[in-house]
């Protein structure tokens, strides 16, 4: 029996076939789908911010699921616990929109872009190839990630569903 597991904001889930991972209404946040095709094991992370390091010195515990740099590493580790081999992991990403047409030179206006850039950099550093993406632009996206097939479905209001 296939289960649908919901991933919240600053959250991730790791599971295996035949389950489906879903995260709703990504705006400037980014959804990262990682998949080991051979094992049909995958994870979906919904990150909010690009980089945890600027918050580390504030003597606060950080939520590792909130940031691209920490969440992606943790998803990979959890997939490895289920037997995944990092050399077989591929990524599909969605989100990072600019929801309001603010100046892109402001912190707030560029956060979607900075999230996407950081996700790409972190994946690059881990040697994980991005094989599909639907990012940036100016609209929200819901992501369904089918662990039986590795297909990422992206649905947006008033647009056809993308199957990537």
């Amino acid at each position, binding site marked *: 029996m296939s289960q649908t597991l919901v991933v919240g904001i*600053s959250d991730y889930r790791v599971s295996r076939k035949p389950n489906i991972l879903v995260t*709703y*209404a990504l*705006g400037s*946040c980014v959804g990262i789908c990682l998949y080991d095709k051979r094992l049909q094991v995958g994870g979906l992370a919904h990150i*909010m911010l690009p980089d945890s390091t600027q918050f580390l010195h504030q003597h606060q515990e950080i939520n590792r699921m909130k940031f691209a740099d920490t969440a992606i590493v943790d998803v990979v580790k959890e997939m490895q616990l289920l037997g995944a081999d990092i050399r077989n992991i591929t990524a599909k990403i969605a989100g990072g929109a600019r929801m309001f047409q603010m100046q892109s030179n402001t912190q707030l206006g560029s*956060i979607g872009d900075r999230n996407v850039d950081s996700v790409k950099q972190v994946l690059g550093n881990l040697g994980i190839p991005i094989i599909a993406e639907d990012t940036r632009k100016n609209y929200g996206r819901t992501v369904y990630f089918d662990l039986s097939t590795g297909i990422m479905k992206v649905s947006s209001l008033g647009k056809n569903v993308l199957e990537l």
Partner: protein
Amino acid sequence: MLKNYEELNEVHIDVLREIGNIGAGNAATALASILDERVEMSLPVVRITDFDTAINALGGAEAMTVGVLVNFYGEANGMIMFLMKMEDAQKILSILLQGFDTEEESEEMTELKLSAIKEIGNILGSSYINAIATLTGLQINLSVPYIAIDMAGAIMSVPIIEFGSVGDKIMFIEEVFSGRENDLRSNVIMFAQIETLKLIMERLGLNL
């Protein structure tokens, strides 16, 4: 020292609620005169919630929503959002644009409609900010209004990212406005940086 929203206590929340009350009072008056209709407002609610609950409180992540965003900055920093369901936005527009030639029944969001909605957001934002500035003596500026029509969750991701970087909860003051004769509802929500909340409390003679 206040570090995140979870540390706000009952006294702070009372103060925030009162700010919401005064801001909303101004906003309701403005809205009533634009719409030429009696506008009722709820008691303001101060919510300190995790991110997903904040979105669900506004009718579900994927609900098609019209959002107008006004940033405030200067001595106080934060954001005011005016949110309504698409169908309520259409009702408000049909009242606002009576007499304009707008292809009456069209559901399409024309430039004229978009600017009308933006302008309401702008007026509501100013009503709130004037209340806070008067109360605290702080110098506060407002940005131009920005509009988005999309999933509620995607729209809310903007303030959540801005104010959710520290801690796992955000705070907002929420107010529901409803029309007397027409059945319409909208929400006005205000977010503020934690430093701004400290400053407001200080100005009002409360120590954090």
